[in-house]
C-alpha cells in the first residue's frame, strides 16, 4: 500500500469508497495513478458482518444527524433518516441488493422523450447509451452480473416463485431472477450465493459484489493506493487558479488534516457530495464550489418507490434467500397512456421480522398491524423502483441551525413528490396488488417508501454549464480538476437501480482522468 505525503500534490484524491469512489480508485491505480482514498467509515469484512438487522444497521449505516423537510412521508416517519446508506469501506455496496440493470436509450433523453412536464426540471444527459455500452459490458464483467458475460441466472427463491406466478397470471412477459451482481457460481475468487437472505447487512459469503472485497484489495495490490479510513472530509480548498488544491478532513483521532491534491473526485453519495461542495465556500466561490449554475444540491431524486406485501394461506418464508430474487420489467418502457411518463421495475423484496415491523407501515399500531405481523411467515413482498421527476426545489441544503459531531452544518433533504411520481406509485401499487391477488393473496398492504437508498442528481451532468454541475465525464464545469464520481451526476433517474450505471460512469471517468493527466491537461 502506498503512503502519500500530505504535501505531495501529485496524487488523485477520491472521497468515498463505494460504487463510484471504490471503482474509480481501483481503475486509476490499475493505470498507475497514485490515489488517496478517503473513507469516513471503518473497514469491515465478510467475517465481521452481522446477520442481525438492527445490529448490522448500527455497524454499517450512515447515522450522522440529517434533517428533512417537504411533503414526502419520510419527513414524518423518519425525520432524521432521509437515506439508508452506509458509512463504511465499500460504502453502500455493502448494503445494496445487487440488481444491475442498464438504463435504456430513451432514459438518457428524458426531456426529449417526455417533453415539458410542469414543475419538472427535466434535461437530456450529455451522453447517449452508445457512449456507455462498452463500459456497461466491462462493468458487468467486473461485477459478475448474472445473465451477462455468459454467467447463468440465480435460482429463484420462494418470494420469487410467488411473484412470478402472479406476474404470469396478470399477463406480464418479462419476469426472471434478474441481472444480479451476485455469484450464481464461483467466480473471481468469490464463492456462489448461499441464499442467506441478508443481502442488506453485508454479504457474509462474499457472493455479492462490493468494492470492499473486490476493487479495494485490487487497488491495494497495485501499490498505488493510500486508503485512509475514518477520514471525514469537511472542506475542499482551491488555489489561485480555478483549481482545487487540497482536501481537509478530520481523522480518527479528531485531528484536522490537509492532503494536497492534483485532482479531487467526490463520491460521497448524493447527500454528502453536494453538502461538501456547499461547505467549500470562498471569496471566489461564495455559493460553494462548482456552483455557478446554482444547481449544486438541486434536482435531488430518490426513485419513485413503495412496496407491496401480501399474505397467503400457505407459508412463503420470503426472508429465505436473496432479497432481490427477481424482477418484472414490463412496466419500464415509457407509455403516457398509463397517466404518467417514465416507467418502473418491480423487484422482490423481503425484510427480516425486526425490519418488517419497523418499515411495513411506519407509525401503525392496533389489531390490523398485529394481524400483518401475525402472518409474517405467509408473506411475500416486492419493491417498486420507478423514475421520479427531477425538481429544482427537491434539494440538499446546509441546515445552519443543526451541527454534526464536528460542528459542521448538517444536510437538510427536502423532497416533495411530483404529481407524476404520485400517479406512477399509484399505478405500481395497483399492479403489485393484482399480481398477488392473482395467486390468492388474503390481504395486501401498500407500504410507503423506505429511507432512500437511491440518492441521485444533486450535481448533475449537463451539456451547458448553466443547466448543471458537471460535464459528460463528471468533470465540474467551473473547476477542471474537480470531478463528481457518484450518483450525484445522474441527469435523470431512469427506472433501473443505479449502481451498475455508477460503476460504468466511474470506469469511463477513470479513462478520461488518466488520459487528461497524461496530456498534462490535469
Amino acid at each position, binding site marked *: 500500500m502506498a503512503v502519500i505525503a500530505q504535501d505531495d500534490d501529485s496524487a488523485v484524491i477520491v472521497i468515498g469508497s463505494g460504487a463510484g469512489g471504490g471503482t474509480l480508485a481501483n481503475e486509476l491505480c490499475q493505470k498507475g495513478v497514485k490515489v488517496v482514498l478517503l473513507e469516513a467509515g471503518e473497514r469491515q469484512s465478510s467475517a465481521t458482518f452481522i446477520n442481525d438487522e438492527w445490529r448490522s444497521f448500527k455497524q454499517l449505516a450512515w447515522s450522522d444527524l440529517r434533517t428533512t423537510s417537504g411533503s414526502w412521508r419520510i419527513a414524518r416517519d423518519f425525520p432524521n433518516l432521509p437515506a439508508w446508506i452506509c458509512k463504511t469501506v465499500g460504502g453502500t455496496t455493502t448494503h445494496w441488493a445487487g440488481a444491475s440493470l442498464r438504463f435504456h436509450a430513451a432514459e438518457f433523453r428524458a426531456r426529449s422523450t417526455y417533453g415539458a412536464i410542469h414543475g419538472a426540471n427535466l434535461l437530456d444527459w450529455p451522453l447517449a447509451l452508445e457512449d456507455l455500452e462498452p463500459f456497461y459490458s466491462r462493468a458487468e464483467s467486473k461485477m459478475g452480473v448474472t445473465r451477462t458475460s455468459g454467467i447463468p441466472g440465480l435460482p429463484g427463491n420462494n418470494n420469487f416463485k410467488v411473484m412470478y406466478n402472479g406476474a404470469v397470471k396478470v399477463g406480464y412477459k418479462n419476469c*426472471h431472477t434478474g441481472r444480479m451482481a451476485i455469484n450464481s457460481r464461483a467466480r473471481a475468487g468469490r464463492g456462489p450465493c448461499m441464499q*442467506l437472505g441478508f443481502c442488506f447487512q453485508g454479504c457474509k459469503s462474499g457472493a455479492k459484489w462490493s468494492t470492499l472485497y473486490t476493487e479495494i484489495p485490487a487497488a491495494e495490490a497495485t501499490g498505488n493506493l493510500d486508503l485512509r479510513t475514518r477520514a471525514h472530509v469537511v472542506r475542499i480548498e482551491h488555489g489561485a487558479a480555478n483549481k482545487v488544491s487540497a482536501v481537509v478532513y478530520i481523522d480518527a483521532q479528531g485531528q484536522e488534516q490537509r492532503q494536497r491534491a492534483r485532482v479531487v473526485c467526490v463520491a460521497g453519495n448524493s447527500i454528502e457530495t453536494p453538502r461538501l461542495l456547499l461547505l467549500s465556500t470562498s471569496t471566489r466561490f461564495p455559493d460553494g464550489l462548482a456552483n455557478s449554475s446554482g444547481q449544486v444540491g438541486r434536482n435531488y431524486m430518490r426513485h419513485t418507490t413503495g412496496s407491496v406485501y401480501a399474505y397467503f394461506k400457505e407459508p412463503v418464508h420470503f426472508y429465505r434467500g436473496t432479497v432481490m430474487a427477481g424482477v418484472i420489467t414490463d412496466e419500464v418502457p415509457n407509455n403516457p397512456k398509463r397517466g404518467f411518463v417514465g416507467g418502473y421495475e418491480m423487484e422482490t423484496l423481503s425484510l427480516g421480522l425486526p425490519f418488517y415491523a419497523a418499515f411495513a407501515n411506519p407509525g401503525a399500531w392496533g389489531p390490523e398491524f398485529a394481524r400483518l405481523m401475525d402472518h409474517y411467515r405467509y408473506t411475500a413482498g416486492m419493491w417498486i423502483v420507478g423514475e421520479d421527476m427531477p425538481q429544482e426545489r427537491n434539494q440538499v441544503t446546509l441546515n445552519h441551525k443543526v451541527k454534526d459531531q464536528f460542528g459542521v452544518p448538517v444536510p437538510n433533504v427536502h423532497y416533495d413528490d411530483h404529481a407524476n411520481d404520485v400517479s406512477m406509485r399509484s399505478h405500481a401499487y395497483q399492479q403489485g396488488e393484482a399480481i398477488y391477488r392473482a395467486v390468492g393473496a388474503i390481504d395486501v398492504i401498500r407500504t410507503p417508501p423506505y429511507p432512500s437508498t437511491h440518492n441521485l442528481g444533486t450535481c448533475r451532468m449537463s451539456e451547458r454549464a448553466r443547466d448543471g454541475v458537471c460535464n459528460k465525464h463528471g468533470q465540474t464545469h467551473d473547476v477542471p480538476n474537480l470531478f463528481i464520481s457518484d450518483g450525484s451526476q445522474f441527469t435523470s433517474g431512469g427506472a433501473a437501480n443505479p449502481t451498475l450505471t455508477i460503476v460504468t460512469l466511474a470506469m469511463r471517468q477513470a479513462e478520461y482522468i488518466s488520459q487528461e493527466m497524461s496530456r498534462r491537461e490535469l
Partner: protein
Amino acid sequence: MTTIAHAGTLCVESAARRDFLRSSSRLTGVLVAHSVLGLLAPTLSWALELKHLAQTEADCVLILAKTLYPHKELPDAVYALVVKDVDDYATDGAALLSAQASIHSLNARVGGQFTQASDGQRRQAVTQLIDSSFVQKVRGICITTLYNNEMAFAHFGYEGDAFSKGGYLLRGFSDVSWLPNPPPDVSPPFPA
C-alpha cells in the same frame, strides 16, 4: 439481543441488590409447556425485576404494549421485554414522571384502572393519547424490542441468523409447493 435464556435468568437478583432498587416490583409468568416457546425455554417460569416502575406502573405498561400490538398467542414473557426497556428508560427522573403522568391519563380515560378495562376501552384511550410522547416512546420500544428477540422469531416464524446454519440453499429457500415452479430459463437450477 435479549434471548429466552435471559427471560429465564432475569429473576436471579440478590436481596442485597434489591435494597438499592427504588422499587422492587416484578413481572412474572409461566410459558405454556407445549407451546413453541415452552419447548425452547430453559425453564417455563419467568420473572422480571424492575428498578424504577412501581408494580401498578409496570402492569399498566405491559397492558399498554398488548393494546398497541395485540398478538393473542404471544406470551407475556415477550411483552415483558418491552416493560424492561421502559423501566430502563425510566432511569431518567423526567422520563419516570412522564410515564407516571401518562399512566394517570390512561386510567382517567377509561374511568378506572387501564389494566382492568375492556379491549375496546383501552384501544379508545390509546387512540386519544397516541401522539403523547410517552405512548409514542412505548410504541417505538415495542417496534424495536417486541419483534427483535429469539422468542418473537420463533413465534412469528422468522429464522434469524442464517450464515451459521449455512444459509437456505439446502434449507428450503425454494420449498414452496403450493405454486408451480417457474421454468428454468427464468429461474435456473443451482449449477451443480
